[in-house]
């Protein structure tokens, strides 16, 4: 289990490759990457605030639950905070399991919890002003399936 909360960019390809390479006996590896998206065409940058201390704790709890619930062999979570530009990677998770269903479900479970239960807040700086990102109903609803 590897959990990192950092302001620096991370190397998605290298992280994904290293994660997959160290999985002895696992047949399936799933990764998810979140990228700063400029949906309206006016985003200058995104700023992510977090709650140092609680963030790591919450991510560890979710990772532990995913490990046991889906019998994962391993979990990786990297989440950035601070300022990012459109196209930059915000975060990634990776899961490994003997079979693909568990690897997929583990990654989706982690993402659903991370979206609405880990203390991160996104602020969008656009050409017309700044705004805290409102939570999406879909994200809260997604938790209902677990």
């Amino acid at each position, binding site marked *: 289990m590897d959990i990192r909360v950092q302001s620096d960019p991370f190397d998605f390809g290298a992280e994904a490759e290293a994660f997959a390479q160290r999985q002895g006996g696992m047949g399936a590896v799933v990764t998810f990457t*979140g990228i700063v998206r400029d949906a309206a065409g006016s985003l200058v940058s995104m700023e*992510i*605030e*977090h*709650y140092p*201390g*609680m963030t790591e*704790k*919450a991510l560890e709890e979710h990772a532990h639950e995913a490990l046991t619930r889906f019998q994962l062999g391993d979990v990786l979570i990297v*989440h950035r905070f601070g300022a990012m530009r459109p196209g930059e990677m*915000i*975060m990634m998770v990776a899961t490994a399991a003997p079979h693909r269903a568990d690897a997929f479900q583990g990654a989706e479970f982690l*993402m659903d919890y*991370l*979206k*609405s*239960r*880990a*203390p*991160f*807040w*996104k*602020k969008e700086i656009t050409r017309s002003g700044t705004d*805290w*990102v*409102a*939570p999406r109903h879909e*994200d*809260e609803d997604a938790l209902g399936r677990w």
Partner: protein
Amino acid sequence: MQLLYFAWVRERIGLPRETIETKARTVAELVAELKAREDRYAAAFADLSALRVALDQELADFDAPLDGVREVAFFPPMTGG
């Protein structure tokens, strides 16, 4: 007791953290106390349904007791990932 504020709660109150003395027995009592203090607190806590609270870094409800709690954090719904 240490109070922490994040995102727009922090912006409305105008500071990221403060240390207070309180006799409030629950989060709700603490919120009532803060709202009575100043307009900026009243504005930050106007709509509790738009707020979340963590006690010693664990998510909690507004009716949770404060016995032994050292750190209370208020913030909007989380938007990570």
